[in-house]
């Protein structure tokens, strides 16, 4: 048991080793959620179309953004330039398009990523949603060099 625990804590995330960080850091900082919308800014049924939850889409985007930022020499992914964010979202959107195609479903040609923040204050909540990036899908033709 101790060996598994030490390995999980040291490796952090390499399947099946994981430090299980879900909800490990409750604090005053806002909680973040993801919204995927079409070109008319209408949120779409991302799970029904691709099989992926909005939370998973958010994680994929952060992972891709951090990777693109790392390649560009930016240590903190959150400080990535708008161009890098755009590039990362384009890549993730194309992956989502492939998943949708596998399920014989279609994504809209314009896919917008938005980030929602929930603040807990005065015994209630305040929600702010801001646009992050926009991807244009062209039937599976990638415009970004894959990682």
């Amino acid at each position: 048991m101790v060996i598994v625990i030490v390995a999980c804590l040291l490796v952090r995330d390499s399947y099946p080793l994981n430090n299980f960080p879900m909800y490990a850091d409750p604090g005053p900082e806002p909680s973040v959620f993801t919204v995927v919308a079409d070109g008319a800014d209408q949120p779409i049924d991302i799970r029904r179309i691709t099989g992926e939850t909005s939370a998973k889409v958010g994680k994929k985007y952060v992972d891709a953004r951090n990777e693109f930022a790392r390649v560009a020499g930016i240590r903190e992914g959150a400080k990535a330039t708008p161009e890098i964010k755009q590039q990362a979202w384009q890549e993730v959107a194309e992956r989502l398009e492939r998943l949708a195609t596998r399920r014989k479903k279609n994504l809209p040609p314009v896919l917008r990523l938005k980030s929602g923040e929930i603040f807990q204050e005065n015994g209630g909540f305040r929600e702010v949603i801001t646009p992050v990036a926009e991807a244009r899908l062209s039937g599976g033709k990638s415009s970004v060099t894959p990682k």
Partner: protein
Amino acid sequence: MSKPFLPVHVGRVEAFLLRAFLSVATLWSIWDPSRYDRVEDASGIAKWGVDVVWIGQPGAHPWALAAAAVFGLIYVAALWLPTLWTLIGVSGLAFLHLTYWTLANSQGNTFHGSQMTTFVLLLQVAACVIEIARQRRKLSSTERWTNLDGMLLYFSQCAIAAVYVTSALTKLAKTSGLWMFQSHYFAKSVQKVWRQHYYDNPSIGDAFAGVSSWAAWLAENPMLARLMFAPGFILELFAFVMLWNRRWAFWFGGALVLMHVCIGFIMRLYFPEFEVLVTIFCVNVPFLIAALLKRGKAA
């Protein structure tokens, strides 16, 4: 009753049910065809160049399921065969489960619901290897190393406890030990999950529109929120106590299942594999069934 924190002796009926239930749980875990047919961000064995993509290719899944069924049958039938057959059966199940979920976790996001099953299977493989080595050296059973199925149960409980204790230690590390004190901020997380559910499928997500009543209540009652979340954290941190003996495993297992049911009720976040494995190996339904059968026979 065995000494604290030492493996127990497992009888034939209990062993049969433990093996059968784990085989079914593994099959269930990989039942749906993988949504993925390529690695986007390699994780685990995929990072080392091991091919996991094959299991997501069109037409591969029925074969993977058939192989899992065969390995499961070997694993159960090996109860009456030399240990090598148990090793073959559980290694096959471990390989298929590891491959399937490594591919799913190589997509740029981590899913936290299947690691426990992989750990249980891998630690059972380790138990078989040690048992075979002991047999070759002609070492007999001791109170620290009982029969094979006693060790399979013990190693499985170790795997399960490790997951919960790791989770609790991460919470302590990330909050400098203040997790319980800060847990009233969990209200925000409950609301976040509510919004995530809504934005998964907004056209049919009316049930998750607006503010979750649980989140609102927790935000209005921070002290009660802390009191509500503290037991879950304590359960996780002290999950290793389930290794004490069968009785502690039963009560801790039951409490952990209840914790997951409550999380499901409040946050609509479900960990079905965790619940099933805890029910099999900690609550130990196979032992309870075996005990009932024994009592029925005696009567």
